[in-house]
């Protein structure tokens, strides 16, 4: 991992940790901040995909998919931002499902790394398993209001800590015998 990526990872993990603490302290109000960030993320991601399509992918076989993705994400972001009051349950469900999928992918990746004996799989396994457990808890407590926000806050703290550890890990080229 290069220095730039390390610095970006540290910044991202600090933001995630701050959000986690905020949500723990004031679950009801800070939830709005999380939703706002989610909407902005959708818009930025949508715009990035559109720029990528027009600058690069429109010359590519199958590149049209980036146009559709970009338009959909941008539309979803703008639409959600324009709503005065997004029902908490739907937003939390969306966030929790995203977390569950990400956790599943991490577990599968770390398992693959373990099989291939690359030696770097434990942290990713912890990260993925943690996300899966927390998202299952989130789904169980989905309609409990405060509890679901607290669970999500814990998952944010978990994610922030894992990202921070990743940023400071040694990633030097390893010697391979034979």
């Amino acid at each position, binding site marked *: 991992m290069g220095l*730039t990526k390390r610095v970006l990872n540290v910044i991202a993990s600090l933001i995630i940790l701050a959000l986690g603490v905020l949500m723990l302290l004031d679950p009801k109000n800070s939830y709005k901040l999380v939703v706002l960030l989610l909407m902005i993320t959708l818009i930025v991601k949508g715009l990035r995909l559109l720029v990528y399509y027009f600058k*690069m992918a429109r*010359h*590519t*076989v199958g590149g049209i998919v980036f146009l559709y993705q970009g338009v959909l994400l941008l539309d979803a972001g703008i639409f959600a931002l324009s709503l005065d009051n997004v029902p908490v349950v739907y937003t939390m469900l969306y966030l929790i499902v995203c977390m569950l999928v990400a956790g599943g992918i991490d577990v599968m990746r770390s398992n*693959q790394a373990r099989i291939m004996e690359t030696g770097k799989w434990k942290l990713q396994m912890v990260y993925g398993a943690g996300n899966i457990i927390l998202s299952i808890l989130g789904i169980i407590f989905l309609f409990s209001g405060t509890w679901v926000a607290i669970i999500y806050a814990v998952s944010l703290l978990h994610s922030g800590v894992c990202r921070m550890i990743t940023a400071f890990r040694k990633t030097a080229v390893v010697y*391979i015998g034979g």
Partner: protein
Amino acid sequence: MQEDFHYYATYCAALLAGYKHDEAMQLCYSAQLVDCCTQTMLARTGGPKAAATTQLQLELADASTDPISLQEMTRIWASFHFLPKDLYAKKKRCSLRYLNKYRLICDVNSDLLVDTVELARGESLQAAGIAMHVLADTWAHRYFAGTPSFVINNASFFHDLESGERIKFSHNPRSGDDTEKGLFTNSVYQTSENSIMNLGHGRAGHLPDYSYIRYSFMPAWGDFEVIEKDNPAEYYNAFAQMVYAMKYIRGEVETFEKEVYDTDSVEKYKELIMEILKSSPDKTADYWKRFGEKLSGREVEDFEGRKYEEEYMAADEEGKSETYLGRFFLAAMRQKSMVTSRIFGSGNILAGVSIDYDIKGFKGIRDYRHMVNEQLKKIEEAGNGIN
């Protein structure tokens, strides 16, 4: 291409070009070493890191996709495995970012190939070996670029031209290819533009590396046109071009021109060569080896990756340049430096920045100082010779 062609076939081509057995062995060893000279190997031997000619999967997995790391990757893969065809290629209504990647697509008979072969003329056997690796790879790796890029290197709709059936891929590197059943591995579909999954021919798996296969596919950059790849025929051309190029490097031919193949020397072996090329991948190395032994009447030893490492490590600083690996590292840095300079000269910074020593003196990566000093020494000696 793999060991069968880079090592054994290069040995055969070197013999046909007029090299003696010992010279041919040294030359083909270098041609194969290009696939082994990684940062890990250089760290082990204490060689200059800038001499890396390839990257291990683990090194790639560890590499970041920031501009500096991407440039490092591009320098290695474009210089030794995916020599760009046309650094000034044009395509209508494209952004410069797209065009810079498009211009790195590898293909045969490029200006850079002429530069590569000319660079090796009058130089060490190691330099000739490296040039032969680069030349051979232009045939195998054509239509892919030596830089990570989804919009260039993604590929789809693979079909076996013999059976007409669709070629199936899996993504588990442990499962390996089953050429009998037509099951192959390739890199994972990743829409991230700079993902290492989109480096070179990863999306086509090892298909370009197998001499027997004939297949069709649709490259991401090709405006929906299907490309048919006839590997046996193309590998035959590669072999004949290697013979011609090595004759030029030895000084037997005055100029190296594009699209010239020494079919005269190769013609009488054509049937046998085509038979080898069309044979199953697990047998080709052995067949090439036997062909080489028939040509030279000598035993061709198997490739042993660490053969020259001890000699290099035991030599003192002054003497390292005279060792086998010392010469290989020097030739590798010269090739990398030349290609980077040409890419940068075309206004493309994907392989990094190149500095003209004559104008600005020495600046940049420290490892290259040794290469510059060696070149200056050579120029000085040549000057003294004239005087």
